[in-house]
């Protein structure tokens, strides 16, 4: 009893801190999600937090003048609704001039210049009368309205309905899956060798791998593409293609992969590996039967890393795969949707949630391995 009452304030503090951090970390995602289901015109004028409650907004609409004017008691009449496409809201005030946009209360009949009258009701219906025929260019009605929160899936429809998205999805998978598996395979072999095999210059190799970690990939784009061109010319094939992207991703991913896996594998209990050696196992047996199953957590976490990085990559795919519509990866396709000057950012919000689906599947799928691997590794 005494012990628990002593501990509880600290526990509470920990819980509160964790909760606080979780909330802080989720807010941007929540904001992005809310933005993604908002109307694109609203998105550019107000923040996502305003979308949750009824808000007062000032808007403008232009009355449409029909070809055949309606006549009532010798007056020309125009009717309509300020909320054109069944958007809902309550009009509180209205006006006819940009200088005084909320001059009149809704429901009142406003006397305007040139004997015009205008009424806007709370439900948005308006009526305009004039002794003379209306000019073809309609007048503007300014109104202030209480608009309830309004959500739409239009942004998602626009992204999913865009031409060539499915093809790009396949392209992205074609790039990502081999570009994740190949470096893991290579790195696992290399990591085992660097951790448990004895050969001259081992320390140098490790130093070189660590050194390669700091090479920025932007620096190597031109020389790499140039050597692809050279090799492509020899075999008479183009320099841009999936093989090139896979190799590039492999090259850029390997240093980190080898470094991570080597550290993990070197930390495996020496006794297990030595007793296997005593029992006559070859290096390949040890690698396959002992090291590989024990390193699942490291392999899985690197796989998640590499998958995310390749899936989200734009630069390498653009340089080594090209810009043609048939070869565009998902990131490239979404960027194309943004337009030449990058204005339509409502597309970004929706596409973020569409692209995130696959990495999430991968993450949750591999997370099980991660946990199971940790448990098996704890048997010592």
């Amino acid at each position, binding site marked *: 009893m005494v012990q628990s009452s002593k501990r509880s304030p600290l526990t509470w503090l920990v819980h509160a801190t964790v909760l606080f951090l979780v909330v802080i970390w989720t807010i941007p995602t929540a904001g992005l999600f809310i933005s993604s289901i908002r109307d694109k015109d609203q998105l550019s004028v107000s923040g996502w937090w305003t979308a949750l409650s009824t808000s007062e907004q000032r808007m403008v609409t232009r009355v449409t003048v029909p070809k055949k004017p309606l006549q009532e008691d010798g007056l020309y009449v125009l009717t309509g609704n300020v909320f054109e496409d069944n958007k809902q809201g309550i009009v509180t005030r209205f006006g006819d001039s*940009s*200088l005084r946009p909320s001059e009149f209360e809704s429901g009142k009949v406003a006397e305007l210049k040139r004997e015009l009258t205008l009424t806007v009701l709370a439900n948005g219906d308006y009526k305009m009368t004039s002794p003379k025929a209306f000019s073809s260019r309609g007048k503007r009605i300014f109104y202030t309205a209480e608009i309830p929160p309004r959500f739409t899936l239009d942004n998602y429809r626009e992204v*999913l*309905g865009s031409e060539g*998205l*499915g*093809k790009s*999805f396949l392209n992205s998978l074609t790039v990502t899956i081999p570009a994740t598996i190949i470096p893991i395979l290579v790195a696992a072999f290399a990591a085992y060798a660097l951790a448990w095999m004895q050969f001259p210059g081992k320390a140098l190799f490790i130093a070189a791998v660590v050194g390669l970690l700091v090479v920025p990939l932007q620096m190597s784009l031109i020389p790499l593409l140039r050597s692809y*061109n050279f090799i492509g010319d020899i075999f008479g094939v183009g320099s841009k293609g999936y093989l090139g992207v896979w190799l590039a991703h492999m090259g850029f991913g390997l240093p980190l992969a080898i470094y991570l896996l080597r550290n993990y594998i070197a930390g495996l209990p020496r006794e297990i590996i030595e007793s296997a050696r005593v029992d006559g196992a070859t290096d390949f047996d040890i690698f396959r039967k002992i090291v590989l199953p024990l390193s699942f957590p490291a392999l899985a976490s690197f796989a998640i890393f590499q998958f995310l990085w390749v899936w989200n990559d734009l630069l390498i795919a653009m340089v080594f795969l090209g810009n043609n519509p048939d070869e565009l990866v998902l990131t490239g396709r979404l960027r194309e949707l943004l337009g030449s000057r990058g204005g339509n950012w409502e597309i970004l919000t929706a596409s973020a949630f569409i692209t995130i689906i696959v990495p999430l599947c991968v993450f949750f799928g591999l997370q099980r*391995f991660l946990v199971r691997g940790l448990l098996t590794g704890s048997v010592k």
Partner: protein
Amino acid sequence: MNKSILSSAIVFAITTSAFSVSSAQAEDLIFPPGEDDRFSWSSYESLKSMDLKGEKVSVFGPWLGSEKEHFDHVIAYFEAATGADVEYAGSDSFEQQIVIDTQAGSAPNVSIFPQPGLAADLAAKGLVTPLDSAVKQGVVNDYAAGQSWVDLATFKDAQGKDDFYGVFYRADLKSLVWYSPDNFDDAGYDIPETMEELKTLTQQIVSDGGTPWCIGLGSGAATGWPATDWVEDLMLRTQSPEVYDQWVKNDIPFDDPRVVNAIDEFGWFARNDTFVDGGAASVSSTDFRDSPKGLFASPAKCYMHRQASFIPAFFPEGTELGVDADFFYFPSYEAKDLGNPVLGAGTLVSITNDSKGSRAFIDFMRSPIAHELWMAQTGFISAHLKANPDLYSSEVAKKQGGILRDATTFRFDASDLMPGKIGAGAFWTGMVDYTSGKESLEVAKGIQKSWDAIK
């Protein structure tokens, strides 16, 4: 487990691919050849003399989205007439990618440069192919102020020899002020004819309790460029075009009093809290794409917005040009005898990987039909004299085309002509510093210093 993830991912991919539509539609000819006689069909017919069956032409440019669609429609005519297979790819990081591709030796056949300065850099490395003198002569004859378009595309090659490298296709007009005619009517303002009147109007709007200008410089990594357009426009309105040319080439230093004066002229508009929506402090943080929306807010956040001809793309949806929004020419000083200078920009079509098909494509790009086909869609202004102005899709575009053709002085966007480190670097950041309160002379000195460093 792993397998089931992969298979579910693949299933997802296949279901999404059901959304995709074949791209074959883009290859239809949207205006049937020979029907509408406003088009120069003769120049389309003459294309047929070239037989390019099986020839592949890769074209790389900056256009995406709807602009890409328009351009694809234009290309379709070239393909139909010659039998060539043209692949256009666009990228919004064109500037970076073309450098990588040309240097690594996998350049596209034809590149469309948004900035001649970049083409000049590549030409100096011998990565762009010079064009025949026949093409050059064609541009001189067919374009309004043809010689100046030729000069803009004449660069030094690897040996330091001047050569002609590309034809301009699609111009942008910068000297425009956008406004809402209804708001001007409501307040009883007239369109200013001279810079003096524009300044008086600015002050009058303030004394009436309004805000005259919306100015936004934000543009991600390129933040600051809209201010360079302002300064260039004001440079042309305070100094002779010759001084402007010297400034572009740095024959006069950036901190020359005449340049500093133009920066201060911009400051007159942008550094006055009452003149700008949100106050002077918000100028550099407002995105240039959001800035014009203030014209259409209720009540209007501002009355005027100076921006190039492309800006209607960022007006709120449903805005009708000519009704809800219109523009007037950014006027020149009555007191200064400098005529009506026009600032503009344009995209340069050049060959980066020579072939028979790419030569033919350049010929197509300078033929009237190629200009007319995009004019008849939307968002295209041409300086081509033989392209029929009746084909402009809107009165607004026609008016802009008229301004471009009738300009007494046409000058190209200076920041696009300056070396990249200045025109797409120090000049931008300098203008952001200036709007944030730094002194103009200090800013100009800073830019000159960066220029000295790269000489």
